[in-house]
């Protein structure tokens, strides 16, 4: 995109008058500058994205063991085995990821809305309050939930003492604990983009909507919500991808029957040292996420949303 934009003046100028050498030099320089600007980012992508992915692909098609090394033998069985052996874990990951995304959206949107429209002078303070817990390591925060939600902990303990719930009731070691942990961990990533989108909305649109006799709810539904979709889109993307790949919450808050694919990948790498299988699992997860994201983007029409210039 940027390169074509830079090229356009050249033929346009050439069409009218022969280009003066000095001008041509300047244009070449401009083009080199643009290419030069792309180099750091491009090199970064090549080094830390393309190269690892290629390595992962090669590894996933290899056989061997840690001692003797891995050989590229174009063995596809890792991929078929990934899906047949770990269907349940893949499904758990997507279920937990989806649930966490939905809950995070339902929680974050009203909060972001309130901060953006009613936060007044204290907006930054409120945002800071949202972000404050995230200055603490995620591991520590998740382990704190272990204490808060413990069977005899500060939350369930008193309720059980008052016989308001059965003695064997527990939240930890259930899917709900995992979804809760994921949601909690992801809320800022949902809230901030939505807040940014809401903040950008021209307040005169809202006034106009009122002038046109829209009720408060209609204004939200037909003006604010559509204008904030870029924020929702970004938030959902951020949260869904990281919540689906997360396994820390499952390890700490889950129990039997809540296994997720991230955990399987981890143990294939570090316990079994079966690097090809772990690589294949990672790629399957990546491709599945990619497909979901593409379908999601198409259905939300991101071309317009990401352009940002629709209003």
């Amino acid at each position, binding site marked *: 995109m940027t390169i074509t934009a830079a090229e356009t003046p050249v033929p346009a100028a050439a069409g009218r008058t022969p280009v003066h050498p000095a001008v041509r030099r300047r244009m070449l320089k401009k083009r080199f500058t643009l290419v030069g600007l792309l180099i750091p980012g491009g090199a970064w992508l090549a080094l830390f994205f393309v190269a690892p992915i290629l390595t992962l692909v090669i590894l996933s098609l290899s056989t061997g063991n840690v001692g003797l090394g891995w050989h590229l033998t174009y063995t596809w069985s890792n991929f078929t085995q990934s899906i047949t052996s770990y269907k349940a874990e893949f499904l758990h990951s997507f279920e937990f990821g989806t649930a966490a995304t939905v809950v995070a959206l339902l929680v974050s949107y009203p909060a972001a809305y309130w901060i953006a429209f009613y936060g007044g002078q204290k907006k930054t303070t409120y945002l800071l309050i949202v972000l404050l817990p995230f200055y603490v390591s995620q591991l520590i925060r998740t382990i704190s939930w272990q204490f808060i939600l*413990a069977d005899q902990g500060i939350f369930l303990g008193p309720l059980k003492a008052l016989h308001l719930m059965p003695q064997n009731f527990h939240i930890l070691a259930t899917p709900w604990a995992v979804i809760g942990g994921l949601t909690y961990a992801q809320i800022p990533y949902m809230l901030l983009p939505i807040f940014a989108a809401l903040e950008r909305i021209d307040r005169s649109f809202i006034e106009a909507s009122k002038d046109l006799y829209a009720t408060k709810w209609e204004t939200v539904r037909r003006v604010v919500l559509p204008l904030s979709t870029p924020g929702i889109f970004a938030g959902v993307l951020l949260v869904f991808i990281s919540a689906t790949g997360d396994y820390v919450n499952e390890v700490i808050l889950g129990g039997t029957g809540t296994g997720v694919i991230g955990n399987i990948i981890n143990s294939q790498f*570090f316990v079994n*040292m079966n690097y090809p299988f772990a690589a294949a699992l990672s790629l399957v997860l990546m491709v599945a996420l990619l497909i979901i994201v593409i379908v999601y983007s198409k259905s939300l029409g991101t071309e317009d949303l990401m352009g940002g210039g629709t209003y």
Partner: protein
Amino acid sequence: MGKGTVAQMTDKSESNPLENMDPAIIRGLAMPRMTRRGFLGLAGAGMLGAIAAACGSSSTSTSTATGGSFSWATAKKAGVLDFANWPLYIDQNTVNGKTVYPTLQQFTKETGIKVNYQEVIQGNSSFFGKIEPELKAGKSTGYDLMVITDGPVLTQLMMYGWLTPLDHSYLPNFAKYAGANVKSPSYDPGNKYTLAWQSGFTGIGYNPELTGGDITSLASLFDPKFAGKVGMLAAVDTPNLVMIYQGVDPNKSGPSDWKKAAALMQDQKSKGIVRKYYQQNYINALENGDIAISVAYSGDIYQANQSSKGANLKFVVPSEGVFRWTDNMCIPAHSLHPVDAITYMNYVYNPRVAATMAEYIDYMTPVPSSKNYVIQDANASSGSNKAGLLAMADSPLVYPTAADFAHAYYGPALDPTAYQTWNSIFQPIFQS
């Protein structure tokens, strides 16, 4: 220094809520490694290593990394030793706010070898993931001595020739003072590559308030009475303990025994008895009352009782037997200072040194005759120090007798092929 650490320990036990527990048990139970608990923090860093390893290795053909042309005959003392160990796994003291290691200082004084002591091992597999690329490439790992638990990682290190064979002419103390139970262990006949650092037990930990009584048998792990309140560890220890319950010696077990153990575990799981297969933090779960009883490392229980007020957990060696493991000193291939490493290996088998270390670590020491020095230290001190040291000298968990070992079993060696079979049997239970 013995006095310093002893004083420190007794101070702790005086202020700790465990006074009603047998002090011998308390002292004997120490296994102050963070081992399985450090797991999550490490995973990320290890992952990079593993990927880098995978990158570097895809073109390697076969490994001939046996240390190349290394020979003990021509090896010379370098005056430096790079030692990789687990956290809190050696005698230590605080002097002017700095941590010092008295037995290491003594070693430097005696031999002139400076020890670069690093507490970098938090898990066998993750540490192996870090050093494996260098070993495969035939390069130095940067360590001359490391401590690895018997099991799949150690088996692989030996199989691929990634350890330096020991020259026992450097190890007179080992020949003279090592206990019979650490000489020529099943996983390393003739101590060709390894010498024991310390050993320990995996048994049952429980919260007596929730179990409503003492636990003595592994059967309690399968008791429907504790449905939803039983913790199992997602580690090799668990299947081994289950096999012991089934009357199988895990050291001699094979796939058919493993399947039988898996069937029992699957049954236990589908009946809802298992709360969770813990990768870490089962101690918190015991303390918080999420579980009443769990497969447990003896020292974790000890540490929990020491570090949190009001905790009163118990560890028991089950009547059916107990799973035993040994952490081993070994010299990685391509070590830059092997003579310094083997000199140190010999040094820790000096009973006086072993006693000082045992007084701090409270593990199962590989040097039975160090007991005399512990008693000597006890007689030189007074009051509770004396009582604590005497109790420790009597503890079957620090100085086990031959009878105590009769029901302590090692796990199978598990070469990579067997380990894959093992994992294919047990991981589906741990993970879903």
